[in-house]
């Protein structure tokens, strides 16, 4: 024990003052996450605001933690929530159970379910941690309309899946297709072009094509993507 020891100690403190800070200023100034961070889920919408979810329950089936509960519903001409026959009437994710593995996202056949970078999933009430459909749905962007409403992008569901981006472009709508998928927004805030590999869907490519698990197992996929 030397009398110089305190000096050495303060020396470390003093030297550290001039080094870059490794801690984050959370919550005042949170750092952005990694671009593919598995945060809270989001149920995406078609460019006209209709929901992409068809209530197929494949996410619930894939979920290893049994965190997802889905009930399908029947679209009618009077009340249409998604293109096609079926929509997700009831959709709940229990964040007390969710382990953020992302298998549900892989299972989703319509790219309805994706994950955002939002990680602030803590609460003092268990009930509030069961997110219901209204909290999971993507916000309505400009050009979108709150369902239920008729199909605006075509007469058939095919128009949405095969020609959706093209129809949106022809309508001059915003490039919401890419924006709503938060993980694909570039770090600088820009949105990749619609037909880029990370961005919107290229023409003729089915939603989720090329991603394992997005085509139901046991069914021969069609090359034309329908």
């Amino acid at each position, binding site marked *: 024990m030397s009398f110089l020891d305190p000096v050495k100690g303060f020396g470390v403190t003093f030297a550290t003052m001039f080094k870059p800070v490794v801690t984050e200023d959370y919550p005042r100034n949170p750092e952005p996450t990694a671009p593919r961070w598995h945060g809270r889920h989001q149920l995406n919408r078609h460019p006209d605001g209709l929901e992409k979810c068809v209530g*197929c329950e494949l996410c619930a089936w894939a979920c290893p933690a049994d965190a997802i509960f889905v009930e399908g519903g*029947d679209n009618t001409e009077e009340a249409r929530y998604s293109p096609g026959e079926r929509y997700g009437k009831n959709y709940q994710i229990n964040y007390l159970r969710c382990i953020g593995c992302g298998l549900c996202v892989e299972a989703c*056949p319509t790219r309805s379910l994706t994950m955002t970078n939002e990680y602030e999933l803590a609460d003092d009430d268990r009930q509030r941690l069961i997110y219901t459909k209204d909290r999971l749905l993507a916000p309505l962007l400009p050009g979108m309309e709150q369902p239920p409403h008729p199909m605006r992008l075509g007469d058939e569901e095919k128009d949405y899946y095969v020609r959706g981006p093209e129809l949106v472009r022809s309508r001059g709508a915003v490039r919401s297709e890419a924006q709503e998928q938060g993980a694909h927004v570039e770090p600088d805030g820009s949105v990749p072009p619609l037909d880029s590999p990370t961005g919107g869907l290229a023409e003729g490519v089915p939603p989720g094509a090329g991603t394992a698990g997005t085509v139901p197992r046991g069914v021969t996929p069609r090359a034309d993507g329908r």
Partner: protein
Amino acid sequence: MTQVATPPAAGGTGDGEDRPVPPGHVRLTIDGITVDAPKGELVIRAAERIGIAIPRFCDHPLLDPVGACRQCLVEVEMGGRPMPKPQASCTQTVGDGMVVRTQVTSPVAEKAQRSNLEFLLLNHPLDCPICDKGGECPLQNQTLANGSATSRMHEAKRVFTKPVPVSTEILLDRERCVLCQRCTRFSDQIAGDRFIDLLERGSSQQIGINSDEPFQSYFSGNTIQICPVGALTSTAYRFRSRPFDLVSTGTVCEHCASGCALRTDHRTGVVMRRLAAPDPEVNEEWNCDKGRFGFGYLHEGDRLARPLVRDADGQLQPASWTDAMTAAAQGLARARDDGGVGVLTGGRLTVTDAYAYAKFARVALRTNDVDFRARRHSAEEASFLADRVAGVTPSTGGPTYADLEAAPAVLLVALEPEDESPILFLRLRKAARRGVPVFTVGAVESRGSRKLSATLLPALPGAEADLLADLTADARPVVAGAAAADRNRAGQLLRASGAVVLVGERAAETPGLLTAVGRLADATGARLAWVPRRAGERGALEAGALPGLLPGGRPVTDPAARAHVEQAWGVELPARPGRDTAAMIASVLARAERDERALGLVGPAPSPDLPRPAESPAADDRPAGHGAVGLVERVVETVAGSVSGAVHHLRDLVTGEHEDAAVAPGPQAPAEPGLAGLLLGGVELDDLPDPAAALAAVAATGFVVSLEIRASAVTALADVVLPVAAVTQKSGAFLDWEGRHRPFDAALPTPGVLDDGRVLDTLGVEMDVDLYTQTPVAARADMARAVPPAPAGGTSPGTAPGPADARRGPAGTAPRDGQGFVLVSWRTALDGGRLLDGEPHLAGTARPDVVRLSPRAAELLGVGDGAPVQVHGPSGGTVTLPLQVTAMVDEAVWLPGRIRATPLVALLGAGSGDRVRVRPAAGGEGL
């Protein structure tokens, strides 16, 4: 479906060649394994037996082979020469020395199957995420197991409009269809309702219906279950859940006495769907739409959740179980000491629940006034049931489903199996297709009888007994004509060993008929079975829920039987037979009338020909599906107006049946104080012979306790209402028409929901008696103590000649005098009953209500098919329905038993056998 079992004859491997081939068998080799198979067996089944599953879509063991899907291709070599192309193993029968190579050993078969699967998927949409079959789909499974991972098809797929409703309940998606024809073959071969068929040719070939004829079959739901893809789905289950969500329980159907095994699938405490469970001895793999889709009533909003007790202001108020039990026990005890309490149990109860009522009546209420028959009934019926039905089960030699297939002839009396016991109908049809002649005694050649190729032995209601007497007589009168020939043939065939007579519950409507049936069975040696409509009636009979019967079907008047039960129960039993349903209602009304007169409220009794009271609410202004409300309005009117009027009608009704019976109901016996209380378990007043009188009686009774599932007309009038478990929430057992025990477990055990047996047990404790019916298991054990073991070696048919033997009333000889037509009527399968509530899609498949007249009668009236016809009843009520000209007795007119959910008797004041007037609605001469 894939049954794998090694039969004793089928040699495994090695030593197979050494043993001789059993007679009637051939020896073949499948994938190198030597198999002995009965001649005519299909290769696919022989392979199944040795554990080789050949993929298939169209093949179904209960349907004729068709070879439509071509998925089961195998390589076959016969006599050393290979067949040039792979063969469909579902149509290829086995041959001696045949060598079969399936996909397991043959690359050719494997490639053929793989290519065929690719071919079937050519136009199959990628619908799996939204398809109801997804997760339990044979095509999906097959593709996953054997299909190619990539597709070579780049062209657009064929598209159809979808889904197409082929009926209100069944949806057709033609894109998904692989044209296996299971649905069309089922409809044609099993149900006989060929509403659905293949249309068009080539690539536009599709399943379809005639646009004028929706798929209105009582059995249409089976096509959904056997569809190997998601081409047929139901409106009720559309997008409701996925197979992995569902918890399945084996249950038994509560809708009729067929006793079908069901699978009840539930999710989050709600029943999602019901399927037919395979039971080869009973329902094979089928059930009817009523059993499949008729469960919506379980989740109706008027389910009772809490006990209700009528307060000082006369309002029903929710109460605790303790308070409600105390109130019920005190009220029942007071009523018991004041004049007695009658017990009516409906007929939809499980065996143990019915036993609890029967025991409660005798032990706690000290009476034999207990009756399960909430329909037209008679004392003759009670003695028939006691003598010939009680105690008969398949194990004591009673006729079974399987016996029908082997019978030399089947005679149906007062039974329309398609409407009243649909699975019995399917088995009869199977028998008829195998050549079993079916005879039906009745006035109408119904669609059901035509599908059974049944020979109609024409008889008007009331005259059936004479016809049976003719069949009974050895020396039959020589009458010329086709009818006599049929009669002679029936009489001859019934004398062959194994012939079966099936008698329906409607036989009780005709005096003397059940006696005649008994005589016929005795004279011909034919085996006899009674087929009630409701699931609980057969069980209630065994449980002793009849005024004259103790558990086990022994008469109350038999001192030995009484002593046995007294010993088991530890109480003294009333020795006198009790009152039946009609007598109980009459007794209540008589008491009410006397009380009114004592108070000087009414004058002297009105003349008996007074028009009957308040049948009023016409079918049209009755709120659909909510009988309770309408009925309560009706009761206010009835009670205020004329209890006495109802009494007089009842007196007419009762005196005819009871004047010579041991019981002397109210009006004839002034010494009787009349019943002061009623305990009602699941009784629907509209089912009773006279709904208005029954309603007046319930309203006039001093103290009424109702055990119910849902709010009803009875609960609205009861003093204490105790909610009980629905069939999904309790375990128990039904007895089907054979007497076969059909136990089931609770599909949705719900804490705090009690079954009837438990409620009555607790109520008994409040009244200082022990019933030992806390649980179905306990009740069953207690019942076993009260019932002696069944005598081995069959029953003794026709032991004591029933009291009805002595009386073949004039009504049994000929149609009653009067003008007009004789009304013939029975309740159709889908008629808006309370158990069908909550499923509008099912109601949409009900057959349209029509009037049926014979061609000659229609000609006399000058009306044709489809023309509106008015039927006028004795009460002044009128029913107008379109005419359907039907082969039937000229003097008869047929109407459905309920029209727009209102019983015919409430509309017309007439039941089967009564005279009604018929006239064209467009105006013109009536008859």
